């Protein structure tokens, strides 16, 4: 016998059998999340409004996020040892923990809440408000992902973790908010520290001590995790985790190829669903995401062959940093004003432009650290900006919408320099757009439209002449 949520779950790619099998878990998690029959109409229309559900791959991606949500909410009840990490984060240590024990659940819970309570149920605001009243008040440019995480815990929606992996190599706020979780709930923390101290002009070079230090910190955090979680990290955990997530990366490369098409076959809102999954889940979400991508790639190949796309053929093509994690309307507005988005920072970094790691490192921590230095994201501001510059070798572009997140200091460092640098180096126009990428209450689609619309008109005029 069906239930009130069946249609929504089918819309989100669940098969009948899956719903039947998961029914008990769905209901238990919904109870914890405060989701009931009265929420279904909103959720149904919200999903249809924001996502291209004509694509099965998209529906399955939404389903992957829902599965991650259910696993997250019930992890404690199901006897899992829970590890939270922040977003963005060096995912390697989380993948290794996940690969070492089936008893361990490792996730970025804020991203899961954003993509489900935000993108599917449109019920994120009360969670953010709970974060604001539990140590992260509004009006101070504090991270809204952290507000979601603290809010989710405070409301009892998501469990208190057994361990926090703190991304002390990147985000000051995140590590300090881990201290807040420790102060409020006594959660032990494994800090992974690093220092972004390369001098401007050095990228892609970096001192070996940056790798040694970050690598040693990763190794140390893994040792601490072993003790706290009472597990043994398998000697081949790194290789296994790479093997497990390998298909995801391979599919991203294929996706980059498809995104070269004109018109662009898929919206950035759908791309965001899969890009974010790779940095948020280490378990079922990512495995389901890989399956969803495979379906999606076939669908997109058909679209490309048929000349179908989400914007008009010949539309100006812009690279953006990333899509909104909780409110796709903010991202969609870029396409609504007639701009095609064939490339994002994440798609480019996973599926495209590469700087080779130096190699010659032996410990898992150093191997991961070396890889991340070349990736650019955790190297520093210069690398992030140069990554945009390199992207024009990967994809024909007419401009950049280089968002910077006002409440994320590591990203906000690029606010002005990226526009000057990219315009000088590439000759392409750049819109530096200040946003909150995780919370649309202050930086809504409506508030951003004027800026993006004007930029789009300028690009269209430029393209015609």
């Amino acid at each position, binding site marked *: 016998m069906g239930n009130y949520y069946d249609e929504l779950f089918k819309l989100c790619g669940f098969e009948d059998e899956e719903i039947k099998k998961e029914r008990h878990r769905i209901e238990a998690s919904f109870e914890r999340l405060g989701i009931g029959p009265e929420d279904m109409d909103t959720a149904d229309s919200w999903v249809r409004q924001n996502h291209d559900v004509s694509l099965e791959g998209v529906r399955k991606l939404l389903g992957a996020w829902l599965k991650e949500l259910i696993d997250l909410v019930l992890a404690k009840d199901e006897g899992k040892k829970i590890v939270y990490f922040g977003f963005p984060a060096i995912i390697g240590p989380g993948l290794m923990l996940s690969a070492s024990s089936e008893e361990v659940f490792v996730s970025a819970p804020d991203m899961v809440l954003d993509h489900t309570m935000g993108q599917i149920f449109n019920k994120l605001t009360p969670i953010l408000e709970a974060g604001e009243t539990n*140590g*992260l*008040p509004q009006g*101070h*440019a*504090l*991270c809204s992902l952290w507000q979601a995480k603290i809010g989710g815990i405070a409301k009892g929606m998501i469990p208190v973790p057994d361990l926090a992996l*703190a991304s*002390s190599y990147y*985000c*000051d*706020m995140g*590590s*300090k*908010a*881990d*201290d*807040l979780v*420790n*102060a*409020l709930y006594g959660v032990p*923390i494994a*800090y992974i*520290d*690093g*220092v*972004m*101290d*390369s*001098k*401007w*002009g050095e990228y892609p070079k970096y001192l070996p*001590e940056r790798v040694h*230090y970050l690598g*040693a*910190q990763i190794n*140390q955090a893994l040792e601490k995790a072993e003790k706290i979680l009472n597990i043994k990290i398998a000697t081949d955990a790194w290789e296994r985790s790479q093997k497990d997530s390998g298909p995801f990366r391979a599919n991203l490369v294929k996706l980059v190829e498809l995104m070269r098409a004109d018109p662009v076959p898929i919206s950035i809102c759908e791309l965001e669903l899969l890009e974010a999954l790779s940095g948020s889940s280490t378990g079922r979400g990512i495995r389901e995401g890989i399956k969803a991508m495979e379906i999606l790639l076939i669908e997109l190949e058909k679209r490309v062959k048929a000349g179908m796309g989400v914007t008009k053929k010949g539309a100006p093509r812009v690279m953006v940093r990333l899509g909104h994690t909780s409110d796709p309307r903010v991202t969609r507005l870029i396409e609504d004003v007639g701009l095609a988005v064939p490339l994002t920072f994440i798609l480019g970094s996973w599926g495209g432009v590469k700087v080779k790691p130096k190699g010659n490192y032996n410990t898992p921590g150093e191997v991961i650290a070396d890889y991340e230095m070349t990736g650019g994201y955790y190297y*520093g*501001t*210069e690398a992030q900006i140069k990554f945009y510059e390199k992207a024009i070798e990967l994809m024909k572009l007419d401009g950049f919408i280089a968002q*910077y997140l*006002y*409440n994320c*200091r*590591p990203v*906000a*460092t690029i*606010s*002005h*320099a990226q526009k000057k*640098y990219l315009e000088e180096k590439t000759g392409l126009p750049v819109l530096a757009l*200040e946003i909150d990428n995780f919370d649309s209450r202050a930086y809504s689609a409506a508030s951003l439209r004027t800026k993006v619309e004007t930029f789009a008109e300028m690009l269209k005029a430029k393209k015609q002449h």
Partner: protein
Amino acid sequence: MKALEKLDSHLKTRLPDLNKAKEGHKIIGYSAGGYLPEELVLACDAIPICFIQAGNNAILRDAGAYICRWFDPFWRSQIGYLTSGKDPYYNIVDLIVVPITDNHVRAFSNTLGYYTPEVESFVFGVPHVKDKIALDYYLKGINRLKKKLEDFTGIEITDYRLKQSIKLCNRERELFREISLMRKSDDFAVDSKDFVALNHGSFIADKEIMIDILELFIQEIKDSSPLPKDDPRILFTGSTLVRGDSKVMGIIEDSSGAIVMEEFAEGIRPYWGKVKTDGYLMANLAESYFMDRICPGWFRPGTERLNYLVKLAKEYNTAGLIWYQLMYRESYKVESYFFPGILKKETGLPMLVLESEYDAMETGPMKTRIETFIETIRR
């Protein structure tokens, strides 16, 4: 007081004096935070100058051309001064050294590297955790700095030279410590404003002259009458208290509060440490500047500093704590949420949290809040 007059007079001629000194010495500018061992600069016969001017909201408009608003106003001020040249000390230095602590400092370092490439600079990182591998990283950083300074000045930093400069800096720290400790007593004559002025002056002044000034100050204080005993004793803490940012201290004083201890990461010299002068001197510097020093709020966990504040609150017999943070310095903002509970539990003391963006408009509300707080703890 003659000591303060002497400091004032020395600072008035400091810029022309530095201009003359440039003929034979390099001037090394460095950013605030207390992680640059001045000993290294002095050991190669160069002159250290720390950039600690801020408090003027107008300079933030200059910074707005280079960085968005959402950074600590002290570091945006440094961006404004660097790019506009409105702080003359930025114009006089030969090399700028930036010990990178958090992302606010990194915003400054990026501006320095990208927008003013003509200014020679050197950066090294300060880890955010305290352990053996972090200490090694810091030591590697200051060893790179040593090499840079030797190349830049053409003077080898020998053990002998380094030991002499360590002794000089130890003496300065010792004098600051002596002055600060006087305030544990009920009968103390050290006005916090004077102590802070000495601190700020020490970042710019000639080291030997500064030591003379501190010695004179101690002599004068010993002969001075104690300050009024009735004013509530206040522990004043936060991220940054620099030259030109006197608004909050002024209001506290006007409200008859007596600051007996200032604990700030930027703008107050870490004076509790003493660098050892035997063995491997570079390791001694790292040990003292990185491991022994009480960490700022952007270290994780922040427990060491918070425990230290509890200890200071007790040892200095304070009636309350005023926590003064700058806008958008998230490490301090987050701690300010859960620390009052710890302080209350451990000492029974209340805490007032103030935030500033160096805006004159803040004065009225701050005055009301500070007056109310002091009236409350007076009872």
